[in-house]
């Protein structure tokens, strides 16, 4: 089952249909996700908002192929990656090649410099070091942190760290990026800057980006928002302010 099943017409973007996740069995079972339906087109940035305990983190872990959903369907580009079960055996490679992650804290590897933090992913995928570093520097340039390319993570500001983290999420050109509260530790100005960068990168690299957030400062920036309540998603239009 290594070969994903093709579905849909687009090579990039993500579609989730009727996704459920139940923890435990019998009387102790907890249904964290009841009915999740999402469609994020390539180049689009959508917000995923909801109160604590609504299932945001569970959904992110399912989308990130870290935990297995109970049922439903997930389609990444043309490939059905989950349909009642994982359709791909090597989830590690799926995470490495098809999904980018941007975390609440940047979680950069403290003993690698900025370039190697970004270049590590392609290196893990077998890309030669020089080529991986070239690709990393291109992204760092696009994100305007190329001047810190040789710096260690501890020498960067919070905003710079988050931009490096975004570069790492983008470096393998994944069809989808999952951003978990990427602006939480930042002030308004930097938070909006990060969202602008994410929108710009989504368009530039044709990537679908899902931003999980509580941050009231950035919620108005999304053109489309998925609200999740009690494990069920509701698609609502956003204001899309201050992005372009």
């Amino acid at each position: 089952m290594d070969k994903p099943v093709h579905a849909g017409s687009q090579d990039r973007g993500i579609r989730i249909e009727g996704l459920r996740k139940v923890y435990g069995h019998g009387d102790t079972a907890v249904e964290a996700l009841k009915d999740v339906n999402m469609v994020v087109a390539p180049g689009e940035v959508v917000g995923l908002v909801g109160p604590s305990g609504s299932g945001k983190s569970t959904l992110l872990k399912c989308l990130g192929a870290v935990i297995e959903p109970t049922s439903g369907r997930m389609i990444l580009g043309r490939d059905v990656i989950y349909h009642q079960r994982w359709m791909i055996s090597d989830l590690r490679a799926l995470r490495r090649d098809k999904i980018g992650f941007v975390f609440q804290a940047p979680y950069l590897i403290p003993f690698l410099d900025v370039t190697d933090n970004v270049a590590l992913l392609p290196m893990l995928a077998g890309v030669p070091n020089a080529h991986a570093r070239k690709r990393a520097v291109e992204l760092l340039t696009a994100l305007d942190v190329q001047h810190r390319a040789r710096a260690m993570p501890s020498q960067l500001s919070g905003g710079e760290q988050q931009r490096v983290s975004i570069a790492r999420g983008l470096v393998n050109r994944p069809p989808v990026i999952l951003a978990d509260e990427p602006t939480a530790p930042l002030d308004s100005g930097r938070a909006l800057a990060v969202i602008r960068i994410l929108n710009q990168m989504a368009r530039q690299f044709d990537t679908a980006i899902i931003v999980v957030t509580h941050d009231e400062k950035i919620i108005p920036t999304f053109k489309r928002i998925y609200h999740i309540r009690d494990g069920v998603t509701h698609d609502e239009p956003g204001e899309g302010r201050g992005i372009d």
Partner: protein
Amino acid sequence: MISLAGRDIAHAWGKFVLTGIGLGLLIGVTLTMAGVYRGMVDDAKALLDNSGADLWVVQQDTQGPYAEASSLSDDTYRSILGMAGVARAANVTYLTMQVSGLGNDKPREIRAMVVGITPDGAGHPGQPAYLVAGRQLTRSHYEAVADIATGFALGQQIRIRRNDYTVVGLTRRMVSSGGDPMVFIPIKDAQQAQFLKDNDAILRQRERTAQNPLLNRPGVPGLLDAVIASQSSNNSVNAVLVQIDAGADPQSVAEPIRRWKRLSVYTREQMHGILIEKLIATAARQIAMFLVILAVVSAAIVAFIIYTLTLGKIREIAVLKLIGTRNRTIASMILQQAVALGLIGFIVGKVSATFWAPIFPKYVLLETGDALRGFVAVVIICVLASILAIRAALKVDPAEAIGG
């Protein structure tokens, strides 16, 4: 692919180097302990080699003169000289005691093995093999040849029991099996030193003998003096050392001495066995126990350090796993760090042991073979010690990188 372990070590080099130094000192102690054992074996070998003897003739049913007390009449060597295959034979006495160096404001006492040898017997067994200064013993009394480890100087006066001796020669690497340096004195003096009583005891013994009517007869002049003289002298030696004719078989020469002289005779191999397997066997087991404990402590330290370092990187490991790093890459990173720590420790340990070994009061022999075996042991210990940390790292759930 870049070396994650190398980058981590370069990033936190201070922590690694300090831990490596701590571990290295422990490894240095371990190598030194092995060196102490090797030194004891080498001392035993030097004792046998430098004696110049092929056979050791000692009191019947004893393992003397090094492992047990042995007493032979000092004219035994004459009859041994007449045996087939015997080239040279010489009396020798051994007594470990305190020897005082005189001539300074404060006499300096050292523990030494006092060896009684026949003066003017160069080339005979038991003599100092070679001198680094001065000459061999030529007079029958009050001269000494000392090992330079005693610290005595040429011409210095030393005191053994109540008598003073002049150091006329210095030799090197003449030590007992316990590592004590040797002091050679004329055999008559050594015999006296072994059985010398204090003056009060001698007076009491003379009075006691004089009051015995059988020994103090008015009609037999000179009897009492003869008895007292026999009581005051000692004609025992501890061993007769024998050199055999060139080409002779030691066992073939030893066997007739055993049979006809009713004495115990040991060849060099047998004496080597007595020294290694009996005399220093307990000390060797003691050292072996220390080595095992030190190895376990080293393993525990490496395991603890690597485990702690790994636990401090749990979030980074979760991120690495989430972004697609293979388990074997992470395990390899931890393993390489453990081995690197062992390498730093081994280098520090080897250098430390080399520096401090000469300061030890007894001979510490650091053998290359022991160092190689120690290196292999350190690597194996580090690999085993990293298992705990690798298990902890592989258990890390990549989901830990995602909040909630």
